[in-house]
């Protein structure tokens, strides 16, 4: 309700968000393998045209960011026979990949329309009846996979506990079975509590602010790295998936696409984020 009202308000006032003109991101075909393209530093990415997207602090629904830390996002895209690839790059001097010690993780996301199009789907997390399909990467998950689950002892190396009731040890992997009585989020399979992720990302569906729900089945992949004070993250998703809540894409078509960024260092999380309006993704290749 709030979103459609806002969209109409935008239309009436002739105002748009951070980008007055939509950017068209060109997604060129590639013959390089998927695994190679998942490396943000692979040289094939240099032959993909780069688009600059203006990012703005989320200022529609409380709690808001009145002042952001990121202004721009660089996007490149590519397509293989079956996969769409999106490469996001933005400047962030600190790689924040920690959730202990009161810290927050850097993150980014790509958003597609799952059912409708840019005219009837709000770029701000969708609206009832017009869901969005989101690919969401977090730096902490990247670190979990590359370096091991960032558990309590990672944040506090000198900590000491005698024992955890009903657990056979003190490590992450020892907390299982009856010991999970003390960790209901894990026994209920909360996606935030997965200690053995295969991908540093999740897929979500949303129909408006606060409704984002993790999908049980993950079709996409991601890989991120931090160097030269920049994050670069590659998402790969099948053009067509068996999941009815996913957006289905076709080579040779144009679809709305939007992005979001979170800066862990300034405690971005949830709605405290950087966003942009719908852009256009022109998917290359022959249908």
């Amino acid at each position, binding site marked *: 309700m709030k979103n459609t009202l806002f969209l109409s308000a935008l239309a009436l006032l002739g105002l748009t968000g951070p980008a007055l003109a939509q950017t068209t991101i060109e997604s060129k075909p590639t013959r390089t393998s998927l695994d190679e393209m998942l490396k943000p530093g692979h040289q094939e990415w240099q032959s993909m045209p780069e688009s600059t997207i203006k990012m703005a602090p989320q200022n529609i*629904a409380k709690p808001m960011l009145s002042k952001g830390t990121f202004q721009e996002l660089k996007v490149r895209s590519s397509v293989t026979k079956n996969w769409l690839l999106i490469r996001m790059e933005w400047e962030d001097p600190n790689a924040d990949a920690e959730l202990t010690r009161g810290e927050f993780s850097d993150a980014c996301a790509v958003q597609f329309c799952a059912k409708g199009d840019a005219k009837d789907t709000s770029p701000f997390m969708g609206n009832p009846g017009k869901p969005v399909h989101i690919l969401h990467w977090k730096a902490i998950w990247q670190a979990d996979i590359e370096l091991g689950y960032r558990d309590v002892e990672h944040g506090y190396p000198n*900590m000491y506990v005698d024992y*955890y009731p009903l657990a056979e040890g003190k490590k992450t992997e020892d*907390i299982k079975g009856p010991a999970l009585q*003390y960790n209901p*989020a894990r026994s209920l399979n*909360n996606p935030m509590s997965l200690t053995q992720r295969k991908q540093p990302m999740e897929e979500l569906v949303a129909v408006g602010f606060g409704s984002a729900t993790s999908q049980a089945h993950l079709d996409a992949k991601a890989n991120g790295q931090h160097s030269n004070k920049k994050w670069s993250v590659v998402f790969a998703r099948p053009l067509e998936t068996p999941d009815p809540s996913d957006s289905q894409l076709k080579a040779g078509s144009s679809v709305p696409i939007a992005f979001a960024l979170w800066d862990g260092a300034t405690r971005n999380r949830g709605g405290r984020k950087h966003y942009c309006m719908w852009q256009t993704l022109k998917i290359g290749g022959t249908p």
Partner: protein
Amino acid sequence: MPKVFNWQIGREMEFPYEGARPDNQFAYIFDLNKCIACQTCTIACKTTWTAGKGQETMLWNNVETKPYGYFPLGWDLKILDLLGAQSWDGDVYTGKTLFEAAESDEIVLGYLPDDMDYANPNIGEDDCYGTTFKGAVNGRSDGSGGAYFDAVHHSWMFYLPRICNHCTYPACLSSCTRKSIYKRKMDGIVLIDQTRCRGYRECIKGCPYKRPFYNPHTRTSEKCIACYPFVEQGQQPQCVVTCIGKIRLSGYLSTPEKSIKNHPMDYLIHEKRIALPLYPQFGLEPNVYYIPPVHVPPQFLTQMFGPRVRHAIETYRSAHKDPELLSALTLFGCTERILKAFKYDKSANEAVGIDMMNGTEVVCVPLTEPVIVRPLHDQKLGAYRHNIT
């Protein structure tokens, strides 16, 4: 923004959601004249709920010494200072609630504590106000300070046990952008949905009492659940039942206009008004009530419990003349069962408690301890009685 009526501040106030009171509200009363900070409640809660990985620094129940104790560090000073000095006009709060004082970007006025603020859970224990003033306060201008007795005791401290207040207008629930926190219709208990929470910690930022905690193992937030599995069976929560000093009572509280006179909670809170909410000026209508400690300066207590402190203390001090009041107070800690009614049995001089679920008399407690005097020498046994082993 919708307006709701908050009886603790005697007026309507802004709240992000349409007001909807639960069918029943589970509430607590703590008698601060009796708490000895033995921390049994803390340990009971910890072994029951927060002994798992990621919960190491969580104390869903904690007992802090006022005024120099706080967990997390300085929690009440910080929010009071953010809100600024505010006023009461009689029973009506004329200042701003945390919802009304929220900054333009925020839903509620709040702050996220530093990680290190949780590092000293028992700081200030037994530290008194008024014993360590430097300078000319105690007549010594050389700064050597220190208290000396001048026939008036300036120093004071008291223990403040705290749990989640299961507020009627929770700031945690209001802060959660995903509606992962809900207040149960059947008993008003506020819970964080462990399937929906994504660990944003907006609830921690929003709650002025800092009762939600972040679990870095599960990466979700957790808080006191009012031992709801017990409550659903008509039993009082762990922290109430294990309290050695019998300072706690829990049960269902009606709104003031529907107060039931022989209901122990309604009687103490609405009829006698001897138990007061914690920092009612925040506007959350918390449901843990406190009998104020009689020895503490009223100005400090009013800051903490609102304008009816003097009346509550007067009433408490006169309890020995009021057997009905004494009965209600005597029932604290005497039964595991949640009571729906109590009465003073005049002929037996006993307090009687009636079970909420099945209506039976579940406990009776004499108001005066039976005293039997035995002679020093027992002629039959030919032995002396000693009162030492």
